[in-house]
């Protein structure tokens, strides 16, 4: 294997250790590796690709600043996901505080929103708005299970919640989404 091939196959742990040893440029490998993997999660959690991009960027910078605290460098992906998740939850709390009473953020026109909506079916748009009205915890489990295709066990491992509590959140989400769709169709 040539030098470039060896570098391409470097494990997350190898790259994290190299960065911690002073080779900061190698952090770009982790950015390239995970920038898109969690983009859809962040976009569905925050309601827009633009907000997702800001969140993913901030999470990468925060992860770099705290890299020495990554206890298991070989599981950088899982550790990074938790940082991004915290960022998404914080952003949700912030936008909730700033949201104007009884006017849904998702019903307001925004830059690029018309273009994005044109690509989605009416059902998809309706469900997306319903999902945006769930609590952050309900929304997360719905996104991870039905958008990302994770099992309850995988979600539990990633978030630290129990399978039972995840199911409870999800089942409440089903009922709320059913009511939301029924009111609007």
């Amino acid at each position, binding site marked *: 294997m040539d030098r*470039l091939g060896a570098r391409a196959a470097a494990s997350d742990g190898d790259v994290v250790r190299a960065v911690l040893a002073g080779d900061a440029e190698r952090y770009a490998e982790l*950015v390239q590796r995970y920038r898109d993997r969690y*983009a859809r999660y962040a976009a569905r959690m925050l309601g827009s690709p633009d907000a997702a991009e800001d969140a993913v*960027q901030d999470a990468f910078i925060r992860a770099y*600043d705290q890299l020495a605290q990554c206890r298991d460098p070989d599981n950088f992906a899982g550790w990074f996901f938790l940082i991004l998740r915290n960022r998404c939850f914080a952003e949700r709390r912030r936008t909730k505080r700033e949201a104007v009473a009884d006017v849904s953020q998702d019903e307001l026109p925004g830059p690029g929103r018309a273009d994005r909506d044109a690509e989605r079916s009416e059902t998809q748009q309706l469900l997306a708005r319903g999902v945006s009205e769930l609590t952050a915890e309900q929304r997360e489990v719905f996104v991870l299970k039905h958008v990302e295709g994770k099992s309850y066990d995988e979600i539990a491992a990633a978030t630290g919640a129990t399978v039972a509590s995840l199911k409870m959140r999800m089942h409440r989400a*089903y009922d*709320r989404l*059913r009511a939301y769709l029924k009111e609007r169709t």
Partner: protein
Amino acid sequence: MREFHPLVKRWLDGELTADQLGAELAAELAEARALLSGVDHSPVTLGHELDQRVMAAVRSRPARRWQRAWRWIGEAHELRLRVRPWAVVALAAAATLVLMFAPARQSRAPAAVAQAPESVYVKFVLYAPGAHEVSVAGTFNGWDTHATPLARADAPGVWAATLSLPAGQHLYAFVVDGRRWVADPTAPGVDDGFGRRNSVLAVTPRGARVS
């Protein structure tokens, strides 16, 4: 709020098939199917500039103390030495050790390696492990991205080229794989007015420096 039947929720969870629900739940099953048909699985693509913004933030972080010391070694410094025969032998041995054991560094500021009255040889070095080709473009070569290719150095991932530059201030940037502009992370930079940063190098008859 009317709740889904527990069996329908288990179908939504993927734990039951439709056949296991029974005809009396057919209407609820149709609603559940409609709900899942609205799930948007389309991928989300983030902007290409995200990587550059993250790495710009990474490079702006202050280096740790030993990194600063290592960087200082790579920069040009004026030294006044009184040479003694035994010292020449000792220095030669030390230089050999340094060359044998020095690891590849992140990047180096251009270093003056020889002097002439009006021009100075400046060595440009970039650590770009994934690159297939690297060149340096700047005011000294008309920003020609092909004029000054860097060659692979002995250390893995390190690219280098030595140029003779006239005295004065020069702006430059590295070009990786013919399309990605990379400012020298160890040199001061200035905005080029188009959203990128160029590095600044000052050349005097006595040497070159990046600050």
